[in-house]
């Protein structure tokens, strides 16, 4: 039936670097050679790190691990548009984000080995550990952005969620707040095509995920998530918008999960290898390498050095990780409250009693020193 149009919306997609590494001059963002090389280093190193982490898991030296292979641009680039004092909250598939924020990867390994001491970020960074129940961090990040706004220092808050997670009501309430209060927030939907075994097209009938933004008065854009330059340009624009007090942005980064969901998953059960191969051509790293090489910023020699450098860096991180002594079981009672209530004091004593029951009176001496505050 004919009627009058009262709102017109469109969704734009940003692509700058084609798969042969040619950049669209018109869209090229301002970015120094140094930063271009840093982007490459981060993507290159995190991929090598991921490969090693998978080997560690396969050989029983690490717990279940979520690799980011194929999503390096979406993960490593956005943090480069931020300050340490800006908040960043990735998802569990966030190794590249934390790495770009300067985290020592030994802690990432420690976390996935099931050790709480793995939750450890660089001093002065406003980094937060991800939420395992997906999406539950999204409204919290609205609060972090709100805090930045109230502090009035131009700080922002950036967070990630997956294509699957975009179906959670949490995103709706988070964007409602972000739009209503014009919060300096950047929501990156890392659309890697899959939510474990559920493909993007079975996740939502929405043509794009970026267009969800229009339902909240939030700016929305889709970018080629395997194109470091496009990801960078979109992030820089969103961060500028946020710092200027012009509100929140939803960036859908379209990328692809090249690996299994985690080392505990077997993607061959539910997806066709052909898609994976098709996406391999769009690989964010090789594409970016072609670009750097054409720009004479990169060559085989540099690649060889970086490869060697990376191997020894990873060896160092793995060694540091494996040298962590077993945690003292009593640590779990630390830092649950500013002041532990009576029940926890009793329960901790009961655990001590259990440890003695198991290992004899001297066991408490033999255990590593406790960490954290108690009571």
């Amino acid at each position, binding site marked *: 039936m004919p009627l009058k149009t009262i709102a017109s919306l469109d969704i734009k997609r940003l692509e700058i670097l084609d798969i042969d590494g040619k950049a669209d001059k018109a869209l090229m963002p301002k970015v120094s050679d140094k930063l271009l090389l840093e982007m490459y280093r981060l993507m290159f190193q995190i991929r090598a790190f991921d490969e090693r982490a998978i080997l560690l898991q396969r050989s029983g030296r690490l717990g279940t691990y979520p690799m980011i292979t194929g999503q390096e641009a979406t993960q490593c680039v956005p943090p480069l548009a931020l300050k340490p004092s800006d908040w960043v909250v990735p998802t569990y598939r966030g190794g590249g984000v934390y790495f770009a924020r300067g985290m020592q990867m030994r802690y990432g390994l420690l976390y996935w080995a099931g050790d709480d001491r793995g939750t450890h970020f660089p001093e002065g960074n406003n980094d937060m550990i991800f939420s395992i129940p997906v999406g*539950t961090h999204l409204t919290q990040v*609205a*609060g972090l952005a709100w805090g930045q706004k109230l502090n009035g220092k131009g700080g922002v*808050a950036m967070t990630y969620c997956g294509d699957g997670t975009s179906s959670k009501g949490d995103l709706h309430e*988070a964007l409602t*707040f972000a739009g209503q209060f014009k919060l300096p927030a950047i929501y990156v939907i890392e659309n890697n095509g899959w939510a474990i075994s559920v493909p993007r097209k079975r996740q939502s009938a929405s043509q794009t995920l970026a267009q969800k933004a229009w339902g909240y008065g939030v700016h929305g854009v889709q970018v080629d998530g395997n194109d470091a330059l496009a990801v960078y340009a979109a992030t820089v624009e969103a961060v500028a918008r946020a710092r200027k007090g012009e509100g929140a942005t939803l960036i859908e980064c379209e990328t692809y999960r090249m690996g299994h969901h985690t080392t505990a998953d077997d993607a061959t059960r539910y997806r066709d290898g052909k898609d994976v191969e098709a996406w391999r051509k769009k690989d964010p790293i090789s594409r970016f390498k072609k670009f750097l090489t054409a720009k004479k910023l990169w060559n085989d020699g540099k690649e060889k050095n970086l490869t060697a450098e990376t191997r020894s860096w990873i060896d160092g991180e793995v060694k540091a990780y494996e040298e962590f002594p077993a945690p003292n079981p009593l640590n779990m009672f630390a830092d649950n409250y500013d002041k532990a209530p*009576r029940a926890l004091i009793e329960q901790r004593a009961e655990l001590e009693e259990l440890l003695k029951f198991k290992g004899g009176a001297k066991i408490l001496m033999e255990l590593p020193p406790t960490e954290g505050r108690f009571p």
Partner: protein
Amino acid sequence: MTPKTAAPAATRTLNLVQAVNEALDVAMAKDKRVMVLGEDVGRNGGVFRATEGLWKKYGDERVVDTPLAEIGIMGSAIGLAISGFRPVAEIQFDGFMPSVFDQVVCHLGRIRSRSRGKMSVPLVLRAPHGGLIHAPEHHSESPEAYFCHTPGIKVVIPSTPYDAKGLLLAAIEDPDPVVFFEPKLLYRSAKGEVPGGHYTVDIGKARLVKEGKDLTLLTWGAMTVTCEKAAERLEREDGASVEILDLRTLAPLDLDAVLASVGKTGRCVIAHEAPNTGSWAAELSALIAERGLLRLLAPVARVGGWDIRMPLFRLEQYYIPDADRVVMAARKTLSF
């Protein structure tokens, strides 16, 4: 019951909702980090008027009418608290709290330990509590057990204006998250002397309402008043000497006060409004028998709501225990 910080002389008679309102006012005047957010808490002053006048006084930035989205309220309050603010978030009715359980169970009490002490979440989650105001379904609930079973958070519920103000100020200043229940039946009916200015009542300490030798009535919230009526009858009609303990803080529990009282009387009736099975009264009954078995002269009795959906309000007085039910249970306990 004595204020931690000496209270200024000027005390007036206030009702419970006025005491809550005054606590918020004092806290906001004292600490710029304190914010109030929720549905209709601003211009409208809250559906029970608990935030009356604050929006005019402290403005849009510190007294915020949020969109109708409880996960958003709870999650953004957590983010604000992590950022160094002191949000006081209101959920308009107890019955709408289940929509924030996800944030409460998965995060609220876990962030301090998950971050290994680097982060804390000093927020207060306020909500009216309990029934008997002739409200529709979901407006008369007592969900405390869900929160008390969840590690890392404190659960407070005052039954007098004095405690309401002092405990809310303590909750706002507490470095950890506090769920603060306000017995809506008492908002206007409970009146009492309340000092002006700032004072706090310690979280984690029960209030001895009255001393007695034969029986302990253990209770919290609006049921405290019901227990006072029941005690008065038991003393008059049965010549029993009844002690009443108002927990005030449910978690962390003032176990010393509970065990001391029941240790003395040997008999205990626990009265509360929630569906009885799996309620906080179960934890109390269990602890009393586990820790004081040999001092019990009779089984602990629980008087609570029935294990069914609370009927619409025409029958709510038959769902929520009244003085008659407490008296019946007390007599069985006394004559055991």
